């Protein structure tokens, strides 16, 4: 884990499937590299000493019991924790080699490149069109907005369902459609990473499966990190899984990373007893 200063910040992620170990440039392979991450809310340490390497064009799932800090870690990736006054982050989160918490980094620009989809579908109380156009507009998008809206909706597998009602309220859509609209909205600012914070927890099973299907589609163009309470969802969609838990040896309920590896391995033969206990339901 040594420092990589030469990395080009605009470098795109390496193609998937390529063996990680042999990749010459680490910044190419790893879109995000987390080192020694500690997150605090005031005096409370939410997460301790997390090291995590996120590979490009893969889906990485963060799982673990409530309060294990997985959502906190996710929100460190696009500096969403900045919104919470008392939140503080130590350690480094490198995005294509650039530390997101560096002194000259603009959090607003970070969030355009690292999009986010939230737990509850949260479209703006505006039209479907305006929901998608808002991000690009404030970013000063110069191209054809109609095309961008269409392209984003197509990528989010929503175009055929809404192409004749773009000017209608986003609230007229079903929950699953609203969430896909939120995905389209996140895509519209052309990020290369999508963060998803329990994106299906408010959806019915069929809508959930459609989002999962969409995620595997989106993997070709984006690096996806998903926090989920649904272990089967992690098993179904993700390439790699990171298991967090509350460290019983600390005074506070601080979350730590227990195990990080290929999902297939995690769900057939995890190396850590804590992982095994959690995913098989032998955890209290």
């Amino acid at each position, binding site marked *: 884990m040594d420092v990589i200063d030469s990395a080009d910040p605009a470098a795109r992620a390496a193609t998937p499937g390529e063996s990680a170990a042999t990749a010459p440039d680490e910044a190419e392979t790893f879109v995000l590299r987390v080192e020694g991450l500690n997150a605090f809310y005031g005096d409370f340490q939410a997460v301790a000493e997390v090291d995590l390497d996120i590979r490009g064009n893969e889906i990485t799932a963060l799982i673990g019991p409530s309060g294990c800090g997985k959502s906190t870690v996710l929100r460190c990736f696009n500096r969403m924790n900045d919104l919470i006054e008392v939140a503080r982050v130590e350690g480094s989160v490198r995005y294509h080699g650039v530390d997101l918490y560096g002194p000259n980094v603009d959090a607003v620009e970070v969030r355009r490149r690292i999009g986010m989809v939230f737990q509850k579908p949260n479209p703006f109380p505006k039209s479907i069109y305006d929901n998608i156009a808002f991000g690009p507009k404030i970013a000063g998008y110069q191209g054809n907005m109609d095309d961008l809206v269409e392209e984003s909706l197509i990528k989010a597998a929503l175009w055929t369902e809404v192409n004749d009602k773009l000017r209608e309220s986003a609230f007229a859509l079903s929950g699953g459609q609203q969430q896909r609209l939120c995905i389209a909205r996140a895509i519209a600012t052309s990020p290369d990473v999508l963060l998803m914070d329990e994106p299906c927890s408010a959806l019915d099973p069929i809508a959930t499966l459609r989002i999962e299907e969409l995620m595997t589609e989106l993997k070709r163009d984006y690096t996806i990190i998903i926090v989920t309470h649904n272990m089967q969802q992690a098993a179904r969609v993700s390439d790699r899984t990171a298991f967090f838990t509350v460290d019983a040896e600390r005074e506070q309920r601080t979350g730590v990373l227990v195990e990080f590896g290929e999902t297939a391995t995690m769900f057939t*033969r995890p190396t850590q007893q804590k992982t095994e206990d959690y*995913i098989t339901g032998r955890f209290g």
Partner: protein
Amino acid sequence: MTQVRRRFHEELEDLERDLMAMGEMAESMLGEAIDILVNPEHPAKKAEIEALVDRDDAVDDLYLSIERRWHEVMAMQTPVAVDLRLMSAMLHINAHLERMADVAVNIAKTARKVRRLPTSDVILGYIREMGDVARHMIRTAMESFATRNHELATQLPDMDDDVDRLNGRMYREVRKCDEDSELLEWGIRMMVISRHLERVGDHAVDIAEQVAFLLTGVFREFNEDTSPDVDDD
């Protein structure tokens, strides 16, 4: 630490308990069948064989019951990790034990067919010895499963070598029976039984392999280089 999937894990325990019961039944049936076969003062009686067939029916019922519940658990509980490996192992062990019980029935039926034919003490000795080793293998394999003992499971291939060796010797002994056609007929039937017992040993080794997979998460075949060969001298 508290159990949060109590019902699921109780179902797993129930399945495992039934498998252990099946193991005991298969092992004792095999013992009885061989007793009927090798005991000269004990000409195979129809009632005894029928009793054994009845017990085999019970094993079959248990086999089907485990199979059905296995599918239910699989569909409804979607086990992962160690639970998934346990499920996988149990499905295999179930099938192996069911076949062992079938072997016992076959041996008993053969005993009835050959009850008037002449016998060879050497061959009967081999059969008895093979039976003893095979039963020991079943007990060891099932014990390694029950106690999650990897070391015990790895002992199975060595035991199987004994069975394979006896099976090899069997061939030579049966060839010696060619002067008497009735003895030869008996010998050929014993040859088939020997082959059956050799298969029982293989089933026991397979069970041990499943136990090893359950415990390590890696599946590998024990001594794949020494595949059994009937003609091996």
